[in-house]
């Protein structure tokens, strides 16, 4: 079986369901709009901020602050791409057509990840330019040090988050369960862990906490002084999480009865 056939098939699958476009459009719009709004607010109130914050201000990261909510839509996208195969029963037709579990999984991941990466890059650049336009004199440009890396990092971050969600739902085989676990893992757990000093360090190693380092240009003393990794190191930690989720998903898919 030609792998290109599996890719074509997976592309048809992903483009012919409504959830793909609404989740990805939401991710893009929410991230851009919220980032723009916060940039406008910060620009208006910059002078009233404490001096320490003014020094540590990262205009690039500021324009990506909508990602806090936009990432939820990315998680839902990933969970639905896989979960809907199980909830609808389509998985049986899919596996009968492509009995090689590895090929099916790889095809699905490739197509969905590529799509998430494209949308992620668009989100990164749109958020950046709109955000910088609204930040006025506090803005930065693509030419500055680390800025281009951070903007592209938005694309990488969203793509990896989508793969993570796919791996987790492949293990759970249920969209609703996958979405609730992913959201608590990404949004709630970091907050809970940060409440206590003893567990705060653990929070650094959560996938999205580590991965979001790629979107920063200035090492902020207020936030990441304790982080034991740089932007690429953080992304590396996220990649390990993602790899583990995908491996788990593959094992479930190949070992368990469909």
């Amino acid at each position, binding site marked *: *079986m030609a792998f290109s*056939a599996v890719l074509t*098939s997976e592309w048809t699958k992903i483009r012919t369901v409504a*959830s793909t476009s609404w989740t990805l459009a939401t991710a893009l719009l929410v991230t851009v709009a919220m980032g723009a709004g916060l940039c406008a607010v910060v620009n208006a109130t910059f002078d009233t901020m404490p001096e320490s914050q003014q020094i540590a201000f990262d205009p690039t990261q500021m324009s990506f602050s909508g990602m806090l909510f936009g990432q939820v839509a990315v998680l839902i996208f990933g969970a639905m791409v896989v979960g809907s195969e199980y909830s609808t029963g389509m998985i049986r037709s899919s596996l009968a057509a492509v*009995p090689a579990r590895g090929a099916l999984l790889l095809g699905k991941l490739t197509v969905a990840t590529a799509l998430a990466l494209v949308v992620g890059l668009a989100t990164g650049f749109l958020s950046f330019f709109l955000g910088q336009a609204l930040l006025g004199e506090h803005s930065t440009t693509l030419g500055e040090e680390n800025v281009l890396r951070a903007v592209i990092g938005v694309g990488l971050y969203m793509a990896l988050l989508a793969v993570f969600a796919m791996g987790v739902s492949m293990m759970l085989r249920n969209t609703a369960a996958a979405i609730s676990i992913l959201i608590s893992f990404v949004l709630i757990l970091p907050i809970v862990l940060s409440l206590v000093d003893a567990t705060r360090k653990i929070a650094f190693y959560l996938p999205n906490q580590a991965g979001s380092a790629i979107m920063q240009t200035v090492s902020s003393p207020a936030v990441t002084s304790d982080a034991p990794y740089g932007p690429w190191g953080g992304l590396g930690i996220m990649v390990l999480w993602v790899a583990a989720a995908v491996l788990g998903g593959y094992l479930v898919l190949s*070992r368990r009865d469909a």
Partner: protein
Amino acid sequence: MIELDGLTKRFGAKTAVDNLSFQVKPGLVTGFLGPNGAGKSTTMRMMLDLDNPTSGAVRIYGKRYRELREPLKHVGALLDAKAMHGGRSAYNNLLCLAQSNGIPQRRVAEVLDLVGLAPVARKKSKGFSLGMGQRLGIASALLGDPQILMFDEPVNGLDPEGILWIRNLMKGLAAEGRTIFVSSHLMSEMALTADHLIVIGQGRLLADTSMADFIHQNSRSFVRMRSPQLEQLKDVLHEAGIAPVGVPDGGALEIDGVGAEQLGELAARHRIVLHELSPQRASLEEAFMRMTADSVEYHAHAPGAPGAAIDNPARPADVPAWGAGFDAADSTRKGGR
């Protein structure tokens, strides 16, 4: 050709499929029968490598399903009408399956037309009735024009026209030399469709035999005779040592244990005019009930209830009584030939 070799599936302590070995041959419609919980669905899922056998193997033309290149071109299956994404149109559901196996796009429109879904090809399959979903599933099975077709309860939800259509389709495909494997609970439907039967109960093979042999071995058959010279016929039969077993209504005799051929010759020799000489067969349902009597899951019991007599499986009035032949049933129980 599908071959099962010692196929076994255990779920924890429960053995769903127990050392099952049989072959499904091309050119025939092979019916797959068994009570609920007999392991039919599990077996069919293992045939498609959806479930992993605990031991044993299924081979399709000598290969495992997973080893087939572009499997839809070899095996088409309708396992479950709901095995499609409801948010996708009928056309797109089939298109993505076709693309994964290198099946040309025009074939999608062809099979949709064939099953009568062309007018709703662009509608989301979520809104389909059970019958339309079933037709979509049948279309997906036919997609790769495969030599082997498997259908699990194909007539579910179809209307009489659809039932007749799928029956003729299966027979036509078998006549083209394809291998057709179909499971169903509808005995009267199976009797019209299948040439060969594989019967399982509690995961084990009970019978692997032709339809005619199965009915013959598991039920009483007799010959009905009518004649305007009834008294003479009775005398002739008496002289030949043949005793009629039943005299249902005026002018007919029922004879057990002697073939219609011999009775015809006997009547001809004694110049007796016959107005009927018809071999009567019991129904497949009756034969099936006798074979699987001790392997069903939910029995209806009604001790002392108002409808107590309800669950007593009284035979349909027009089917001969269950009588002799239980010994024959026992001898076939361990798996035909």
